[in-house]
């Protein structure tokens, strides 16, 4: 086989300098031929194994992991959808009503989610102040495998969530994510939006779906820009 030296170094997970030196010293069964390196795949593999190194050639059919980094706020919110006029006069009641309306879950999953949400609420309230709550299960639901979702629920009547500032909650974002990493990323992005007073005011007007998405998209652009700094 013929490969460039930096490719060999990559597949062996070693610095290029080291591979160069090993070839010069004759420690590795690879021959230099100008810029290329000639070797026999089976021998190099055997050599690598006997020395606790790994030699893995890239496979053509390598599937890229669904980008964990790429999970953004807007798609998650679109996936979760908006629920208007959620009824209920207590935390349990609004959560029950909201969970029932989440579309993509099976009945069993809904029951489990509801229990987990209550469990999380018992720990500490997810009311983060300013009339906003972000209920979420403490551990990931088995049914949420790939895509995270945020379901935005506007309550018919503000409900006392025993939030940090004791203000009654008028909007909930139910956050479901497949992994802690995504959970934290979405939570941090959502918190960034909610820090903005005007956005909370905008939420109080119970906006329609398109206006809401537009607003979120604008925020997301801003976040990406500061992150790129």
């Amino acid at each position: 086989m013929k490969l460039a030296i930096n490719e060999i170094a990559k597949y062996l997970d070693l610095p290029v300098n080291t591979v160069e030196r090993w070839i010069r010293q004759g420690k590795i069964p690879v021959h230099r031929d100008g810029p290329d390196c000639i070797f026999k795949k089976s021998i190099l593999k055997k050599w690598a194994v006997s020395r606790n190194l790994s030699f893995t050639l890239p496979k053509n059919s390598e599937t890229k992991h669904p980008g964990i980094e790429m999970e953004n706020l807007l798609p998650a919110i679109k996936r979760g959808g908006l629920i208007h006029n959620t009824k209920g006069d207590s935390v349990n009641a609004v959560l029950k009503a909201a969970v029932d309306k989440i579309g993509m879950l099976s009945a069993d999953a809904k029951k489990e989610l509801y229990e987990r949400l209550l469990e999380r609420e018992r720990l500490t309230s997810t009311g983060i102040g300013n009339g906003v709550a972000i209920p979420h299960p403490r551990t990931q639901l088995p049914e949420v495998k790939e895509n995270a979702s945020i379901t935005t629920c506007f309550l018919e009547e503000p409900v006392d969530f025993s939030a940090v500032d004791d203000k009654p909650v008028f909007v909930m974002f139910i956050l479901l994510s497949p992994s802690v990493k995504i959970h934290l990323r979405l939570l941090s992005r959502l918190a960034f939006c909610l820090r903005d007073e005007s956005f909370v005011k905008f939420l109080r007007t119970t906006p329609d779906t398109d206006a809401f998405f537009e607003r979120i998209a604008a925020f997301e652009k801003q976040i990406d820009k500061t992150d790129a700094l």
Partner: protein
Amino acid sequence: MHSLKSWRYPAKWILFRTDDRLLLIFIAVIVGICSSLAAILLNRSLIAILSWLHPFRQIWWAFVLPGIGAAMSSLFLEKIVNEGAGHGVPEVVYSVSRYGGLMRFRSSFSRLISSCLTIGSGGSAGPEAPVVMSGAAIGSNIAKFFSLNDRQRVALVGCGAAAAISSIFNAPIAGMIFSMEVILGEWSSAYLIPIAIASVAGTEVSRILQGNQIVFSHRHFDIDLMNIVVCLGLAIITAAASILLTRMIKYMNGKYGKAPVPLWMRAALGGCTVGLIGLFFPVVLGEGYNSIHMMIEGVFAQGFIIVVLAAFLKILATSLTLGSGGSGGIFAPCLVIGSFTGLAYHRGLVLLWPSVSWVNEGCFALLGMAGLISGMLQAPMTAIFLIVEITGGYEVILPLIIVSTISTTFCRYIESASFYLKDLTEKGHLLRPRTDARVLTELNVRELLETDCIGVKQNMLLRDFINIVKKSHRNYFPVEDEKTGHFLGMIYLDDIRPYLFNPGMYDAVLLGQIMDINVQTVALDDDLTEILDIMDINHLYSMPVVADNKFAGMISKATLLNQYRKELMVQAND
């Protein structure tokens, strides 16, 4: 055109590409022949010079001859080939462990000429070490000619050394073992096979040209238990003699090193002194193989006192010759001193217990040689096989083993390293395979560089810096000058953590104010051993690497351990 050129790159032939063992065997034969020819050349020219100078020996001013020879040899080494004095074995060992056996072409003949001048004129030194150096250089240069890699080159250097010893003593096994035990310092089949082949080739060439003769043939010895027991005493005495010789050479080296005269004058002075001793005791002159012959044959007539005196004078003459800058090895002087010591021991035994029937004194001369060689070289295997082969006497093997091993043990108590490796050990240049020092020298800073640090500017506000902290997965941030890009200092997250959570500081603090400017930095070419020492003293786990005033990356113990282990694994499985 390509096919015409390819004969110089045999490593690229399909036949040898995957496994170079056959290739090494082929080239080992070439190296063995060339190295053996060099050894024979030196041997022949020594004989020629000795016989040419023989008539002059009777004249009273003959004592200046060794002086002239030593001065010429020193001038030749210093002015013409520009190489250091000494016997050359440490240079070979160092080159093997540090530079993959890379040696200069001129080394393949320089020591031959200089030692020929020194020994031929009467200086007390041996031709073996120079031949070893030439053989090794021949091996190295043949490897270079065929563009072989370091490992193969080291094998061929070993081949050259083995063939040289094999050829000069007609002793193939001793050559192999010398090469593995002293030159390479490791026993692996990858090296053993080409070296064995080279030894065979070298010995055969020598047998064709010189005839198959055992260097020191002797009569039959009858060795009983009593003789084996008294060997213990001989071992201790030979150990003492070898320590005396080592110390004397070092002492003379120090004395002459301080003399405020040019190198060749020092050598001339030393040579003349040897010549003076030689006027009264001609046995100390030259390599001294003749006197060994006489002693083993049992025809060396002089009494106890004279023999003891001769042993001491030979030690003195050798240290004068080598210490003053003459060129040659200690192998032959060791053999001479050893046989004097053995003989003296035997005479002493006879004086003390005249009624016991001791074995022939030649046997003790033999054992003395083994004791001295193993004491000086701290290489018992080489001594045992060398003596067995050069005397053709397997019946002495039992006392031989005892004397060699005990002598080595005693010498090691007092001298931590052998004569050949002493200087290297003192300078920290002895890098045997699979040792910590070797692994650390093979690795270099460039291979360990971590370049995932994000550089910041000195006039950046803390507020902007926080965004950078968000993205970085390191705790270290190099601060660079805006214009020149020069490295100014480091920011350690640990140091500035309190400010990070104080928004009041965000716009008030510039990075230039909070960076650490007294950072220990390393350069790209720094020695890893030293870097680790600095880390240990200052309790650091990582340090910035600065090249041309610019930040190049970080070096950390974690990465070092990772690479260190890989390097060790690769070396271990050679």
